[in-house]
């Protein structure tokens, strides 16, 4: 029988949650790398045994781990992330120039077809790639070197490149998103980039046509329809129907359009999920009710999903990389909270149950669908 493997990164280690296709009974493995912050763990689409993990500590900085057996054993690989050439400066919070400094890897995106090729989105915002399974890393400098790069400013959480999406239908096309610079697209395998932020309206940016400076929290794409992109911005849920050339708002009847994650149903490209959060100052669900909102119309019309989720006294957050979907016949949806719960829905969000309740704060959730 097919199964799923949920890869959870937390403030104090990684956890691997496994179940068969019914997704009722779970085995929990971990903590792996106990005590370290695990920003992200993701498996290779080309080889489900191959996993990459971003491991970080304030004492000792960045470490990258690789597994070839689905997370049972791990090998420490390369952790040297050196910006290409003379890094230069970006803008600091006070508007002064600040040297580009590598801090950590936020997101690891394995290639769609080569287990040894993987991309890393880092803070300060840059894009790196490895072609040897993570042993050696090289920057793709065209992104950070874009004409606007020197004007990028960090968001409250740091200037992180947190989203990397590879277009399965158009080799060479990829998307990246940076807080707080915006969304970017490459059509030449990451060699050159341009901002794709037309239509975004951001409080605090007086120019409605500002090319960069937007606090994009997350992008999502359905692989069967790669020109349609969804975005959870700092405020506003947005949609593009032309691969980012233009965006329009689809927040519709959401109780608040602030939030972090956004994801797409595995089999229904118009079915999307967000977790509304009260505001930028109050990073918890409105009214203390943890509600996932689902749109079956590609946005604008949203319904709350509450069955099995706490509907009182709930003040957790769901971070940008902490939601994922599996591709079983009945699409499973998963998310983790800063309170340490990982919730699963085996029926596309209709009902939810916690897999685990008491992990450290969850930073990321990914899922692998296994044969």
């Amino acid at each position, binding site marked *: 029988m097919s199964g799923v493997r949920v890869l959870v990164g937390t403030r104090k280690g990684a956890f691997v949650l496994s179940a068969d296709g019914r997704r009722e009974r779970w085995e929990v493995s971990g903590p792996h*790398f*106990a*005590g*370290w912050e695990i920003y992200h763990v993701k498996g290779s689409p080309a080889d489900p045994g191959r996993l990459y993990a971003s491991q970080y*500590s*304030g*004492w*000792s*900085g*960045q*470490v990258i781990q690789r597994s070839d057996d689905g997370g049972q054993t791990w090998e*420490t690989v390369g*952790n*040297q992330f*050196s910006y290409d050439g003379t890094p230069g400066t970006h803008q600091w919070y006070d508007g002064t120039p600040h040297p580009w400094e590598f801090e950590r890897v936020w997101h690891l995106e394995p290639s769609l077809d080569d287990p040894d090729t993987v991309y890393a989105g880092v803070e300060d915002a840059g894009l790196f790639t490895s072609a040897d399974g993570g042993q050696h890393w090289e920057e793709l400098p065209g992104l950070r070197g874009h004409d606007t790069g020197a004007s990028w400013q960090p968001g409250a959480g740091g200037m992180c490149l947190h989203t990397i999406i590879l277009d399965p239908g158009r080799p060479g096309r990829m998307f990246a998103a940076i807080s707080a610079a915006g969304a970017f697209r490459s059509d030449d395998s990451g060699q050159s980039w341009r901002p794709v932020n037309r239509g975004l309206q951001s409080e605090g940016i007086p120019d409605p046509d500002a090319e960069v400076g937007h606090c994009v929290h997350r992008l999502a794409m359905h692989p069967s329809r790669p020109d349609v992109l969804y975005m959870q911005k700092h405020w506003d849920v947005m949609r593009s129907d032309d691969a980012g050339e233009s965006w329009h708002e689809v927040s519709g009847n959401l109780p608040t359009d602030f939030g972090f994650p956004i994801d797409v149903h595995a089999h229904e490209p118009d079915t999307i999920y967000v977790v509304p959060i009260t505001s930028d100052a109050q990073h918890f669900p409105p009214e203390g009710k943890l509600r996932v909102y689902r749109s079956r119309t590609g946005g604008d019309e949203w319904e709350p999903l509450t069955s099995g989720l706490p509907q009182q006294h709930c003040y957790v957050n769901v971070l940008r990389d902490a939601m994922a979907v599996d591709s079983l016949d009945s699409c499973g949806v998963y998310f983790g909270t800063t309170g340490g719960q990982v919730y699963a829905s085996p029926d596309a969000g209709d009902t939810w149950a916690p897999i685990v309740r008491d992990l450290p704060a969850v930073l990321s959730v990914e899922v692998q669908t296994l044969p």
Partner: protein
Amino acid sequence: MIRVALPSHLRALARASGEVELDISGPVTQCTVLDALEARYPTLRGTIRGHGRGPRRAFIRFYACEQDLSHQDPHSPLPEPVTSGAEPYLIVAAMAGG
């Protein structure tokens, strides 16, 4: 033989238990001790100091013989009790983090 004590999170990363013992030919300095440590345990590269003999990471400290050596010249000789193996060279995770 030089004895090196690692903080627990680096012992786990290096898969080392207890103190690490290193043989160093030539001058015994903080720099050559770290060179030998990183050669024995490549997974520690970049976690104590920057790659390529880079600067000490901000929240890592070096002690020996009840002295804080963190700000001393990394190329200065280490105290005799360290070079003789009587005392360990301590790599310490500063009281920071969470």
